[in-house]
């Protein structure tokens, strides 16, 4: 008699434990996904800031270096392309082109001593350099979070829950030509 009475109790116990585990895993995944969304939002904020700074910079440089219209055009074009990009991959590619164009603009500025002494230019240069850094750092954090998220939803038994609630793998925000950003090896 006692064994028969125990079966439903045990069954209920197992179901309760399973349900609690499910809730825990689900909430954990949601938390991670929100972190991911937040990290992406951070990149977005910085990218927008860069779009806002670029016209100012181009105007300032134009006043001193009139003959470099080709460079200005490239920067403006790259900016427009980046702004109209749709997917994460497209966006990443367009941003790389923009970063390159900005680099050539700053290289142009090097040749004009008057420009380099201009307070407004110096302020814009610092802001843009820092914004570039911020993009790089928030992308780094985003990719770290994507990695954690992707690993988490693929590992057994969490993958069952992830599949049930349709948690999908996320794309990394990658930079092409990663080799360029690598430092030369220094030995001490």
């Amino acid at each position, binding site marked *: 008699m006692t064994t028969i009475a125990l079966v439903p109790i045990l069954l209920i116990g197992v179901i309760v434990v399973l349900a609690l585990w499910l809730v825990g895993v689900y909430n954990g995944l949601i938390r*991670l996904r929100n*972190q991911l969304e937040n*990290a992406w939002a*951070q990149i977005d904020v*910085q990218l927008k800031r860069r779009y806002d700074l670029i016209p100012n910079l181009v105007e300032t440089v134009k006043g001193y270096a009139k003959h470099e219209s080709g460079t200005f055009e490239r920067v403006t074009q790259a900016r427009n392309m980046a702004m109209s990009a749709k997917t994460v991959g497209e966006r990443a590619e367009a941003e790389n082109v923009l970063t390159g164009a900005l680099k050539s603009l700053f290289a142009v500025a090097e040749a004009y001593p008057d420009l380099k002494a201009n*307070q407004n230019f110096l*302020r814009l240069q*610092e*802001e843009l350099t*820092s914004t570039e*850094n*911020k993009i790089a*750092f*928030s992308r*780094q*954090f985003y*990719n*770290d*979070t994507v*990695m*954690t998220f992707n*690993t988490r939803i693929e590992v057994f038994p969490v993958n069952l829950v992830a599949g049930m609630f349709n948690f999908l793998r996320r794309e990394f925000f990658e930079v092409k030509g*990663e080799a360029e*950003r*690598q*430092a*030369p090896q*220094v030995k*001490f």
Partner: protein
Amino acid sequence: MWEQIRANRRRAVVLITLMGAVLLVIGYVAGEFFAPGAGVIGLGCALVIFFVQLAVYYGAAETMLLHGANVVELKREDSPRLFNIVEEMKLASGLEFMPKIYLVDDPAPNAFSMGRKPEDYVVAVTSGLVHRLNRDELEGVIAHEMAHLKNHDVQFMTLAAVMLGSIVILAAIVRQWLWFGGGRRRSRSESRGGGGGQAQLIILAVGLIFLILGPLMAQILYFACSRKREFLADACGAQFTRYPEGLASALQKISAASATTSFASQATAPLFIVNPLYAGGGEPDSVFSSHPSTAERIRILRGMVGSSLTDYEAAYDKAAKNTLFSRETLGTSQSGAIRAPSNEGPIETRQDTRAPFYRTRGYLKVKCDCGMEISVPEGYEGDEITCIRCGSVLPLPTASETPTVAGLPPVIPSLAPPLQYRRAGTGWESLRCACGRTIQLSPSFAASHIQCESCGRNIEITS
């Protein structure tokens, strides 16, 4: 990184539980010593000592470090570059809120972080640090501090420090009491009691061992943990910046400086990036030191092949013959190459770094055409000053009276016609009101009028 934080929290819970247990046992034993059966009261006393200490420590550490006359909170316009660096590191670490930045006027380069909640985290740097380090180095230092905040080291180490303090105090009280006349009373109670004597004796013996070894063990545990957290923060800092050399060379500069930080004490020393009480990297390397040897930290950072936690682990294994991270942590750590150095020099000159202090102390800044900048204290009499370098006579920037028809001085200052001042540029600027008070205009000041805090008169600002 998430795995790393979780592992940290697990370890913290273990340590706090262990130290808490030691504290409670000592409390119980102390109670039993005073009067058999009073162990629970002793337990209560231990808790009271702990909470009083906690309250005092929280209040005192913040007051000691952040509320001095030589500390200011920096706004973006005070130091845009430092602000940018902190913002960059906030993004790299994924911290929720932007921490406040405090500048301490001290020639010794050092930095520390504080805060109970993410909303009021603080990163503090000394003026000696800001003007001495270049951008990459400063970034490394800030990243190290962010790692402390991200890993909740500050809250945890504070709790551990307070527990340690309580254990030491309690043990000292009981030892004192045993030394002076405690023994007499105990022998009396023993002769009175019959059967309970044996059990009591065992409790006493165990208690005595605890009284002597407990504080010592707690101390060793605490300092070992403090050192480990420094290594962890170094590792995370290198990962955030993707540039270990920045932090390594910053540590070298900090430890090579000859001045010691004047505002730090034994209690607040573990909060700093390098122990502030020992100049020239002379901290003795022992079980009782709060920081690992700086030379070793630099060696590990420079031995890194990449910038990930795995690379730090490899370098750490080689230098210390020990492991730092769990396998799960390393499993989710992204590999990362070391980025190129930025080649930017120091972000500010010494004068620029200390300018906020001159502003809060009411100095008037006068620029000469020869490039010299003169700081004139409030209360200086006269309308002009001679340049120390080129000898030209400079007028002090003063708000001028609007020419009025009647020419009579106004009776109520706030109703008087406004004084006038024309801005010279777009940067920081200071001017003198007719009453002698210095007024500072920030780069972001955009209004047309400003009111003097001292006499209440309005000053019209034109540009």
